[in-house]
């Protein structure tokens, strides 16, 4: 990739730590080239990026997503690692974000929505944080969908460290981007800054589970400010980790959604239902119809309903789980995967 002097100036500018200084500098000058005389530092960074397979896309670049330019303070440079075609204007992008301390409910919700989006060909944007973010990326990749991770550190820095595998899969099949030059370390103040890019890149933002004052509420507020659609999934009024979402509904700032179709409309569902080829036994069919009526059932309830012995039921449920009809939840609860 060729970098002009303007590009080099912006790359050097991006090394400036302070957000306000970066913004001021951009507004002060007519052309970024006026900022610096000597571009040797930019050349060092460009050399380093070449080695690491990273490209820098500046606001002047044809690859820079026009959606992102609309916002008040677009990042001047996007460092990218992976498939940059995901930044094209034709790609439909939705952000899925939420709390790091995810509950089972939040995780289920995230998976439910993310997998529907991925199947509908929508690119899922998130922040690769623990909890909801990771679940969103993971689901997208499992469904062979597209995903963009917007990082709060250099695109070659893996944070949180346990997401190494996920990160590697994202840069292989999707895209990781950041406004910070390579090797930038994660710092708390960078994550709120990063959140404006998540919403800026997307048509809408879905918050699946978030407590009051959670970082994802910053993303939600940024979405409102940037004029993006904000969707939240309601949670239990007793759950601390859903308070942020519920507050947004109460304050009429977001649309409450309870199924993916609320966002993407009903689409042609070209699901692969090969699984159905498996012949269900009578007992299995009975269990499925029982599970359809209730949210989830405990092992002992199923035992009483089915009249089977413990080992028969265990084997039977296990088989249904392997073939993808039901899910085993923690605490020996079972739930149906989706309506058949």
């Amino acid at each position, binding site marked *: 990739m060729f970098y002009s002097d303007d590009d080099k100036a912006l790359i050097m500018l991006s090394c400036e730590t302070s957000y306000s200084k970066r913004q001021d500098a951009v507004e002060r000058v007519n052309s970024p080239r006026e900022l610096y005389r000597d571009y040797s530092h930019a050349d060092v960074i460009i050399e380093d990026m070449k080695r690491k397979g990273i490209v820098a896309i500046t606001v002047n670049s044809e690859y820079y997503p026009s959606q992102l330019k609309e916002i008040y303070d677009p990042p001047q440079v996007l460092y990218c690692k992976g498939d940059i075609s995901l930044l094209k204007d034709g790609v439909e992008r939705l952000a899925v974000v939420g709390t790091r301390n995810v509950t089972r409910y939040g995780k289920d919700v995230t998976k439910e929505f993310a997998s529907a989006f991925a199947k509908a060909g929508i690119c899922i944007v998130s922040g690769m944080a623990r909890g909801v973010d990771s679940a969103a990326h993971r689901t997208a990749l499992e469904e062979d969908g597209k995903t963009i991770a917007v990082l709060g550190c250099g695109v070659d820095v893996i944070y949180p460290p346990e997401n190494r595998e996920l990160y590697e899969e994202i840069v292989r099949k999707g895209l990781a981007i950041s406004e910070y030059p390579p090797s930038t370390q994660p710092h708390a103040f960078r994550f709120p800054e990063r959140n404006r890019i998540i919403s800026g890149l997307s048509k809408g933002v879905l918050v699946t589970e978030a407590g009051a004052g959670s970082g994802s509420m910053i993303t939600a507020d940024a979405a409102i400010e940037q004029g993006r659609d904000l969707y939240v999934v309601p949670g239990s009024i007793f*759950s601390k980790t859903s308070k942020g979402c519920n507050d947004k509904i109460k304050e009429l700032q977001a649309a409450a959604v309870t199924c993916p179709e609320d966002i993407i409309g009903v689409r042609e569902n070209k699901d692969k239902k090969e699984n159905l080829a498996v012949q269900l036994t009578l007992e299995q069919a009975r269990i499925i119809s029982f599970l359809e009526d209730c949210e989830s059932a*405990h092992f002992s309830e199923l035992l009483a309903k089915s009249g089977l012995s413990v080992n028969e039921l*265990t084997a039977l449920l296990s088989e249904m789980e*392997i073939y993808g009809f039901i899910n085993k939840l923690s605490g020996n609860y079972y739930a149906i995967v989706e309506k058949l």
Partner: protein
Amino acid sequence: MLAKVASYALSGLEGFDVTVEVDVNAGLPAYEVVGLADTAVKESRERVRAAIKNSLLDYPIKKITVNLAPADSKKEGSLYDLPIAIGILAATEQLPAHSYKPYVIVGELSLDGSLRHIKGLMPILLSAMQSGYTRFIVPEANAKEASFVSGIEVYAFTTLKETADFLSGQKEASPVPVRTFSAQQAENKYNVDFSEVKGQVFARRAMEIAVAGGHNILMIGPPGAGKTLMAKCVPTIMPDMTFDEAVEVTKIHSVAGILDAGKGIVTARPFRTPHHTVTVPALMGGGAKAKPGEVSLAHNGVLFLDEMPEYQRQTLESLRQPLEDGVVTVSRAKQSYDYPARFMLVASMNPCPCGNYGSKTQQCRCTAQEIRRYVSRLSGPLLDRIDLQVEVDGISYEELRFAPPSEDSATIKARVEKARAVQRERYKGSGVHTNSQMTNAQMKKYCQLSPQCERILEAAFRKLNMTARASTRVLKVARTIADLEGSEDIQINHITEAVQYRSLDRKYWE
């Protein structure tokens, strides 16, 4: 004059003979003990002197030298009081010469001349019997313990005077009658029963499988779910101990000094619950005297680790050797001791530090990192040795309402014994007793799968995100389930059931 009395010493669980030589000679009155005796032996001077005087016998006012031969190995404990006293009496001709020669004599003296209980009699008797000794004099308090060893004559007395009278022929005594082991078995009572465990159908089944195949098991569940009660019930469904097993356990408990003198032999399978602050030496054995640790005290029984992640990492890792070899080697500067440690490991843990993760009604207060850190305290190699990992339910209203009447331990035990019989037949002569100990070669032979089974196992791994190391575990457990059912081959339903007992492999906490 000189007297030589035969006695015995223990080193670990094995013994060696000790000759107590007592020399009483002219000189300034004194009492010297030589032959690497520890403090307890040296202090015998006061006990022996008082006991002889209070038994109305004569204590010589001469120079007394006691030598414990062989002089180069350490002797410890109080069991030489009686042989020293007998030696003094013999050396001062208060006992006929040679009257004490045929006996191996052990016992502790009280100041009033009565004989007190000693530690480690069972291993002493068994070891001495192997070296050819057949007659023994022991304290009455140890008589029960001695009565289970057949093929020897054991005389038990309550006082030094009685012992002296017997040796000088003034009093008749008959050896302790030999008891048969089965008579004891009937008295064998546990104070818990599986019928007390309400609900928990899933975990109960897992327990049955674990015991049937000798598998280690980990229970995961919220506080107050009854994990400890279930663990305590495990010994009640294990097959009864054979005499040989009971003797092995009794030897260890006798050396450790925790044997119930009233019973004399351990008939109930041991259940040991070391607290999570336990140190490595306390768990594995050690200390200055290289005593057996908790793993050895749990030999042939159950070692229960409650709240497993709370144990120190180092402590948990030390369990790997006994879990693998069934024996621990305690090495000390001069010597190393082997203690058997073949136990079933039953462990429990909360799903997260606060205990409410995954609960339907309670809010979990832990952060993702805290949970990850909590679970990661159990290392892969350790989890590798735990075949079954099951979730235990928090007891709820429905749980109690829908719970069918619980089976009692005896019914479960009968099924377990049948499955064990199948395994005994299968592994006859191979040194392996249960499915959990199967070697790789044996797995190839006994865990052959039909193509359908292979397929479902593969599907299970892909679908449920199981780790690769889980495969052998699943197969071993499937083998046990098949044995419980009396099935020759592993069927599909055995595999699908076994898959359900691998909670941790399924990246449950992801």
